[in-house]
C-alpha cells in the first residue's frame, strides 16, 4: 500500500534552527524539500575530512581487533551519549593517529639506518677513526672497491711500487680495500689500478672507527625496533576501543547529514519544508514543540503539480520484496502499489526455478539462521528474508517435482506430480501457463487502477479483452474446450479492434488503430514464451544436481561389503556431495534471482507499471555501525 503524504512547513527563529534539525533527525519522519534557487546548506567539509580520518584509523586497527563473535550482539548506544559526547572520541582518534604516525616515522628511520649499516659493514676491520684517513706528507691514502677476482693483480700492482695495502670486507660492490702509496708513485699506481676497475670511495670524516659507528647505529636500530613494538602494543590496546571510533563515524556522518539538509534562511528565521507520512504528523509536531516554543508549523496536502515521494507500507511477507521493485523504479504515489501482487509471483517463480526440496530446506535454515545470528539490517536484511521465504516455495515445488538434493525420493508415499526431466513438454506447458497467469495478474492490477479512476470501459476493452484472447487461444489447445476457446479468442479480438481505438472520432481511424493494437498480440506471445526460461532453469539445476550425485556415487561405489576402504570412499563421496551441491545451490540462487527479477521487470511490470516515483528518504541519523539508539 502506498502511504499518502502531507507537506509540512515549519518556521522557527534562527537560534532554534540547530535544535529543530536535531529533533527532526531524531524522529526521522521528514524528508526535506530542496528548492534549487533559494535553499541553503551548511558547509560540511570538516565532517568529510573527519570521516576519512576515522575510516583510515578503523582500517589500520582492523588487524589488531578481536575477531567478531559468531553471534552478533546488537550495538546499542544511548541517544544522549550519541549527540553530546564527541570530543572524547576525537581525542582517542588523535591518539591513535599520533601513535601510528610515530610508528611510520620510526620505520622510515630504520630503513635509512639499515642502509647505513650496509655501507659501513665492509670497513668494520679498519681500526683507525675515519677522520684520520687523510693524506700525510709522504703518503697518499685511498679507500675503495675492486672486483674480488682481481685481488691478486691488485696486490701485485701495489707490491711493485712498494705500497701498503689491506684487504677488508666483501660486499656486493666488491672487495673493500685500503692502501697507501708513496706520494711520488701515486699517479702511477692509480694508473695501473684503472686497468682492474678500481672505484675510489670516500668515507665520511667522523672521529669514530667504522666498528664504533656500526655498533652505535646498530644500537639505535634496535632501540627503534623496541619502540615500534611498544607502540604497536599501544595500538593493540586502542583497538579494544575501536567501537568508540565506529560510534564516532556514525556521529560525524549524522552531523554531516544534518548540516547538508536544505533550509531557507531569512533575516531572523529559518524556513523548513518537507514531506511527512500523513499518519506521522503528530510526531513531527511533537519534535518541533520540543525544540522551541516560538514556531509556526503547518501541514497541507500536495498540490496537483507536485510529486511527493513514495513510502510503501506492506505486511511482513510483502515488505522484503519491495527491494526488487525499488531496484527497478519506485512507484509513483498516484499508481497502485505493485508489491503485493509482485511479491506473490516472485515467490512462486523463484521456487519453481530452484525446484528442489532439499535446496529449499537449506535456504530456509541457512538464511533463517543467518538473520538470527548476524542480525543484518536495512536492505540486506530484506534480501535474506526474501531468500528465506523463497525457500518455502522451493520446498513445495521440490515435492511436486519429486527432487530432493537431485535424488528422486517418495517420502510417505508422496508421488511426484511432474518430473521435469521425464516430461519436459508438460513442464514447458506449465511454465507457459504460469507465464500467462502472471501476465493476467499484471492486467488485473491495471484493471484495478482503471477501476480506481472509474474508467470501466478501459477495463473492458484494454484488460478483459486481452484475457479473453489469450485465455481463448490457451483453451484451443484442450480438445474438449476448442470451440469455447475459439469463440472467446474471437470475442477478445473483436473487442480489441472495436474499442481500443476509442479515442478516435473517425470510425476508419478507430478500426485502424484497433487493428494495430491487435498486432500487439505478438508482444503478448513473446512475453509468454519468455517464461520457457522457467523450464530451462529448473531443468539445468536438476541436471547438475543429478550429475553431482552420479559422480559421488561412482566414488562411493558398492557399500555392501564393509572394509576400511569403504570409509575413505564414503569420505571422498561426502566431499563431492558437499562441494557439488553448494556450487549448484549458489549458482541456482544467482540465476533464479536474476531471471525471476527479469520476468517481473519486463514481462509483468510491462503490463501496468510506470514506476515514475522516487523513494521517501527522511532526514535521519546515518547509522552504519550502530544498530540501535536508546532514547529515554
Amino acid at each position, binding site marked *: 500500500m502506498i502511504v499518502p503524504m502531507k507537506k509540512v512547513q515549519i518556521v522557527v527563529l534562527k537560534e532554534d534552527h540547530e535544535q529543530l534539525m536535531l529533533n527532526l533527525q531524531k524522529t526521522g519522519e521528514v524528508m526535506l524539500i530542496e528548492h534549487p534557487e533559494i535553499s541553503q546548506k551548511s558547509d560540511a567539509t570538516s565532517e568529510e575530512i573527519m570521516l576519512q580520518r576515522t575510516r583510515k584509523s578503523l582500517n589500520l586497527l582492523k588487524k589488531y581487533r578481536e575477531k567478531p563473535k559468531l553471534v552478533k550482539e546488537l550495538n546499542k548506544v544511548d541517544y544522549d551519549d550519541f549527540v553530546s559526547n564527541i570530543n572524547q572520541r576525537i581525542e582517542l582518534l588523535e591518539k591513535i593517529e599520533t601513535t601510528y604516525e610515530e610508528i611510520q616515522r620510526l620505520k622510515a628511520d630504520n630503513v635509512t639506518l639499515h642502509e647505513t649499516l650496509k655501507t659501513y659493514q665492509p670497513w668494520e676491520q679498519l681500526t683507525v677513526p675515519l677522520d684520520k684517513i687523510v693524506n700525510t706528507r709522504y703518503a697518499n691514502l685511498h679507500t675503495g672497491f675492486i672486483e674480488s677476482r682481481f685481488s691478486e693483480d691488485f696486490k701485485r700492482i701495489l707490491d711493485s711500487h712498494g705500497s701498503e695495502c689491506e684487504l677488508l670486507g666483501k660486499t656486493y660492490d666488491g672487495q673493500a680495500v685500503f692502501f697507501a702509496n708513496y706520494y711520488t708513485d701515486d699517479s702511477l699506481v692509480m694508473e695501473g689500478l684503472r686497468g682492474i676497475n678500481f672505484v675510489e670511495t670516500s668515507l665520511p670524516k667522523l672521529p669514530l672507527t667504522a666498528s664504533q659507528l656500526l655498533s652505535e647505529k646498530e644500537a639505535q636500530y634496535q632501540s627503534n625496533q623496541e619502540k615500534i613494538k611498544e607502540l604497536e602494543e599501544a595500538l593493540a590496546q586502542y583497538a579494544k576501543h575501536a567501537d568508540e571510533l565506529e560510534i564516532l563515524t556514525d556521529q560525524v556522518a549524522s552531523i554531516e547529514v544534518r548540516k547538508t539538509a536544505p533550509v531557507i534562511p531569512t533575516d531572523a528565521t529559518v524556513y523548513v519544508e518537507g514531506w511527512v507520512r500523513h499518519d506521522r504528523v503528530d510526531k513531527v509536531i511533537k519534535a518541533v514543540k520540543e525544540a522551541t516554543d516560538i514556531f509556526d508549523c503547518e501541514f497541507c496536502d500536495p498540490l496537483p503539480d507536485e510529486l511527493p515521494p513514495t513510502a510503501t507500507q506492506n505486511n511482513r511477507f510483502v515488505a522484503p520484496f519491495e527491494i526488487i521493485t525499488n531496484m*527497478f523504479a519506485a512507484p509513483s504515489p498516484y499508481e497502485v502499489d505493485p508489491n503485493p501482487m509482485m511479491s506473490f509471483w516472485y515467490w512462486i517463480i523463484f521456487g519453481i526455478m530452484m525446484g528442489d526440496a532439499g535446496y529449499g530446506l537449506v535456504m530456509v535454515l541457512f538464511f533463517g539462521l543467518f538473520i538470527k545470528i548476524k542480525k543484518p539490517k536495512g536492505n540486506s536484511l530484506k534480501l535474506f528474508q526474501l531468500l528465506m521465504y523463497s525457500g518455502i516455495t522451493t520446498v513445495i515445488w521440490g515435492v511436486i517435482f519429486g527432487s530432493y538434493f537431485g535424488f528422486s525420493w517418495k517420502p510417505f508415499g508422496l508421488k511426484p506430480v511432474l518430473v521435469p526431466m521425464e516430461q519436459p513438454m508438460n513442464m514447458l506447458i506449465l511454465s507457459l501457463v504460469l507465464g500467462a497467469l502472471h501476465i493476467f495478474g499484471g492486467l488485473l492490477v491495471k484493471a484495478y487502477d482503471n477501476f480506481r479512476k472509474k474508467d470501466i470501459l478501459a477495463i473492458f476493452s484494454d484488460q478483459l479483452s486481452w484475457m479473453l484472447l489469450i485465455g481463448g487461444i490457451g483453451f484451443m489447445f484442450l480438445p474438449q474446450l476448442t470451440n469455447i476457446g475459439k469463440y472467446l479468442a474471437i470475442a477478445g479480438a473483436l473487442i480489441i479492434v472495436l474499442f481500443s481505438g476509442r479515442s478516435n472520432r473517425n470510425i476508419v481511424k478507430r478500426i485502424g488503430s484497433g487493428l494495430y493494437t491487435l498486432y500487439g498480440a505478438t508482444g503478448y506471445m513473446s512475453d509468454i514464451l519468455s517464461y520457457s526460461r522457467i523450464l530451462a532453469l529448473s531443468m539445468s539445476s536438476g541436471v547438475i544436481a543429478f550429475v553431482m550425485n552420479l559422480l559421488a556415487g561412482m566414488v562411493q561405489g558398492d557399500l555392501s561389503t564393509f572394509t576400511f576402504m569403504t570409509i575413505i570412499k564414503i569420505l571422498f563421496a561426502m566431499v563431492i556431495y558437499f562441494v557439488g551441491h553448494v556450487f549448484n545451490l549458489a549458482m541456482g540462487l544467482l540465476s533464479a534471482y536474476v531471471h525471476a527479477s527479469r520476468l517481473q*521487470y519486463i514481462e509483468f511490470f510491462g503490463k501496468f507499471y510506470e514506476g515514475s516515483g522516487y523513494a521517501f528518504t527522511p532526514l535521519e541519523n546515518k547509522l552504519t555501525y550502530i544498530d540501535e539508539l536508546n532514547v529515554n
Partner: protein
Amino acid sequence: MSTGLLIAIVGALLSTIVAGLGSAIGVQMAGKAATGVVSERPELFGKLLILQALPGTQGIYGFLVTVLVFVELGFLSGNPALTLETATGWAFFGACMPATIIGFLSALYQARMSVYSIQMTAKQPDAAAKGMTMTVLVETYAILSLLVSILLVTNVM
C-alpha cells in the same frame, strides 16, 4: 545409427552450442561495461546484474530447442529412435536453425544494447528500467525464432 539421426543430433547440438556462444559473448560484453561502472558506483550492482544477464536468454532458448529435439527423438524417455530417414533428419536440422542463427546474432546485438543501457544507467540510475525495456526489444526476434523452432521440432514427426 542412421544418417538421419546423426543429422538431427548435429542440428540439436548446434542450437545449444551456437546460441550459447552468442550469449556467452554477449554477457561478457555487457559484463565488461558493467564492471567499469561498478568500480565507481558499487551501489548499482543489482541493476547492472539484470542488464548484464539480458543477452543470456538466447543461450537458454538454444538449450530448450536441444532438449525438445531430444524429447522428440526419445533420448530422454529411454527408447531412442535409432532409424530416422535422412529427410526427417534434415527437417530436424532445419527446425533448429532459427533458434540457432537468430539466437546467436540477436545475443550479440542485444549485448550492444545492454552496453549502452549500462552506460545510461551509470549516468542516470533511475533510467535503468527504460534501458532494460529497450534492450529486451531486441530479444523479440530471438523469441519469434524460438517459437518457429518449437513448432517445427514438435511437428516434424
